[in-house]
């Protein structure tokens, strides 16, 4: 059994202790006071937004290539195979050049945003978009099908730093 700390006895100990505590309090308060005059660390979120870095693992999307007016997916199933959560589901019909996607679903609720699918994709068909606001009342909304994934791609280039935005409630869905 370990030793208990010695009880401080006598008046002098108490006075000294109180004095020490007061000094400690003043030293601590001085530091906190200094912080008051520093630039604010808080971001007023719905009014200001921190633009995420361009490597941010946000939601997934299949952006439309303006040249072909379609996504760049060549239906190689690599992303489906590498996904550790098995949340990508791809189906296709046809042979060779005429192969078309009939199903490209990503279960955004199961996805762990690891980025392995983006890494293995040979044509950069599947990308991360700098969006993260997708909360919903219904879990079924988190199953993104091909249309959703096409729509999720960003239209504008990505900026960085804190930006002011109009007050808005709710995300894209």
């Amino acid at each position, binding site marked *: 059994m370990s030793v208990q700390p010695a009880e401080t006895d006598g008046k002098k100990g108490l006075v000294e202790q109180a004095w020490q505590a007061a000094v400690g309090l003043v030293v601590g308060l001085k530091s906190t006071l200094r912080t008051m005059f520093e630039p604010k660390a*808080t971001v007023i979120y719905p009014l200001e937004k*921190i633009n995420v870095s361009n490597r941010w693992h946000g939601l997934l999307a299949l952006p439309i290539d303006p040249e072909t007016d379609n996504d760049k997916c060549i239906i190689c199933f690599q992303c489906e195979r590498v996904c550790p*959560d098995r949340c990508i589901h791809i189906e296709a019909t046809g042979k060779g050049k005429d192969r078309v996607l009939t199903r490209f679903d990503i279960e955004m*609720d*199961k996805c762990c945003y690891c980025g392995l699918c983006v890494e293995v994709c040979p044509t950069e068909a599947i990308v991360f978009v700098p969006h993260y606001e*997708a909360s*919903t009342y219904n879990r079924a909304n988190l199953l993104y099908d091909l249309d959703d994934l096409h729509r999720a791609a960003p239209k504008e280039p990505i900026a960085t730093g804190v930006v002011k935005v109009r007050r808005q409630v709710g995300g894209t869905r």
Partner: protein
Amino acid sequence: MSTDPKAIPRSTVMPLDRALEVIDALPGGGAVLTKVEDVLNWGRAASVWPLTFGLACCAIEMMQFMATRFDADRVGIIPRGTPRQADCIIVAGRATIKIAPIVRRLWEQMPEPKYVVSMGSCATCGGPFYYDNYSILKGIDQVIPVDVYVPGCPPRPEALYEGFLKLQEKIRKEPFLRRRIAAAAQAGS
């Protein structure tokens, strides 16, 4: 309900089961009720007090959400340590089968009206722990009803914030008083 014959039935003291009909029949009664409801809901939406119940990694982002940069306190999201004082529970992280009854009990201890925010993939459906796993619950909505799902692994603090904005929207639209009166009438009759 009391079976004591001498006890006055509650409905004779306050005919609650007819209260809604009466209010709606009065000229402007329904509108006044809605206005009162709006004010109440505005107050409720601006002070959602969540229970701090961190389960796994998402709890760290929840801490960030309540700390310096995002500072949830400024919009009335004040974390509480006990379920009796909380309006809302943030299920932050994966729930195991062992912890599931405790989550349920905490939820039952919270006073009505209560809300649940499911934060992260794990709380939503099991997420990365969905397959090949024997111990994680496949979604917290198997034990408690969820109001808002926030996807992400972990969701950014802003994403959780957006979830709360959604929750506030939901609270603002709720026919809170009507539901309360109807519930009281049902209990009284």
